[in-house]
């Protein structure tokens, strides 16, 4: 296939074929070799379980995604952003906080889950807190990098206009920082899902995606586990895809979008 439409078609066709191929092989192997369902259920079985358990899956989704992931992602990203602006205003703070932020970003943050459960209780609040902790630092680091990204000439231009700090921030540095901010928002979308689910491994009322996964694993109800994973996968991809769409609208000007 040649030409632009040919190229776009293969962009979608190849991965789609690959995915379908994997599903087909999976089904064939499980059915053909008689793999026990407690080990690896067939895609058809997972689908059946998914359809049969919609109310339960929905309840889990509400508990984990609506109550923990989304609020936590918003609060964590927003606070990371605000602290980044503060760091921009106060260079001393930036020089002190950023190396620490880079350090903390490398640490196993999931480890604070039990502590958060202790502080905020078993319910969704501790999971949302987990998400806030996990999403704060990637946004801080990326936003600081983004605020520094505007070019030297562009900043001199603003100076030549006698522009105030606020005007320079709103008209130059924030738009120039958007690619970095969206990078962090996308990373945070994934981290938020992981944070909420893993936090549920440490204690939760009897609802939630992490809860369902860990209990069903204990009961060897693997088809339910895979059904939850499928929901998590769809949610994660949809969230990410939405951000990619928004990113394209906001940072349409970035060279990476030009051929």
């Amino acid at each position, binding site marked *: 296939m040649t030409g632009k439409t040919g190229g776009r078609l293969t962009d979608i066709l190849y991965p789609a074929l690959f995915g379908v191929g994997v599903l087909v092989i999976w089904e064939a192997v499980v059915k053909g070799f008689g793999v026990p369902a407690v080990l690896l259920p067939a895609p058809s079985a997972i689908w059946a379980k998914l359809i049969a358990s919609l109310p339960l899956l929905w309840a889990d989704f509400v508990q984990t995604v609506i109550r923990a992931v989304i609020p936590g992602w918003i609060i964590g990203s927003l606070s990371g952003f605000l602290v980044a602006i503060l760091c921009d205003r106060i260079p001393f703070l930036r020089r002190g906080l950023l190396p620490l932020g880079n350090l903390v970003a490398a640490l196993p943050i999931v480890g604070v889950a039990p502590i958060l459960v202790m502080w905020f209780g078993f319910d969704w609040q501790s999971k949302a807190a987990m998400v806030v902790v996990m999403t704060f630092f990637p946004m801080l680091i990326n936003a600081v990098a983004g605020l520094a990204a505007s070019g030297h*000439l562009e900043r*001199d231009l*603003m100076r*030549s*206009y*006698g*522009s105030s700090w606020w005007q320079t921030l709103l008209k130059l540095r924030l738009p120039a920082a958007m690619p970095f901010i969206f990078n962090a928002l996308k990373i945070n979308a994934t981290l938020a899902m992981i944070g909420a689910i893993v936090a549920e491994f440490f204690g939760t009322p009897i609802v939630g995606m992490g809860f369902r996964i860990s209990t069903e694993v204990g009961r060897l109800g693997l088809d339910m586990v895979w059904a939850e994973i499928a929901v998590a996968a769809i949610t994660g991809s949809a969230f990410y895809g939405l951000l990619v769409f928004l990113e394209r609208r906001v*940072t*349409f000007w970035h*060279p990476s979008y030009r051929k």
Partner: protein
Amino acid sequence: MAGPVISARELSLVFQTADAPVYALSKVNLEVEEGDFVSFIGPSGCGKTTLLRVIADLEQATSGTITVNGMSPQEARLKRAYGYVFQAPALYPWRTVERNVGLPLEIMGLDNAAERVARNLDLVNLKGFEKKYPWQLSGGMQQRVSIARALAFDPKLLLMDEPFGALDEIVRDKLNQQLLELWGRTKKTVVFVTHSIPEAVFLSTKIVVMSPRPGRIIDVIKTDFPRDRALDIRETPEFLAVAHRVREGLKAGHSYED
């Protein structure tokens, strides 16, 4: 009748580096009258851009005095006395051409924005390109937008730092011609930094020859070519004589040695 637009006396700028102090500017004396087209020419390191930036209050001198429009460079900057054109267009890629030209008007809170933008785009012959984005324009066109932006808020003074340096010679010739016409029409005072001798001689009423280590003025040459000159003037004996004098000045300042 006001005094000179720019007046520098014994202006010096020294900055400390790890090895030794660098004398970017050393006891510069200069006067620029209203309506002048002044070029600073010299090799890299001669202080021409530094001098321009001191005038613009983008850098501060370490000794000596300088006034712009009779006040300090900082006051002049805060009063929006000049428009600055950089070596690169420095357009914001997320704004269309007309919004880029309107940027200073937004910041300064000036009204009549639409009319000013249209008028200045017309001045640089870019009517019709208002809704385009910077990456859709060629380098020369982007630089013209940058000039329109510098003129948008009607400053009396225009500071230009090697604006055509990144463009090829043919485009450069065209833009030189257009800049000259624009200057003729608007009667601005222009300070223009370049490292091209023909460009400096073609455009200017006064050529300031500078040399490095330390950055200083070697010669100031006044020219009086006719206002409505064309590019062919570059082959006339008068032109070549001035160019020769510039080159002699550069040699005297050791600009051609390593």
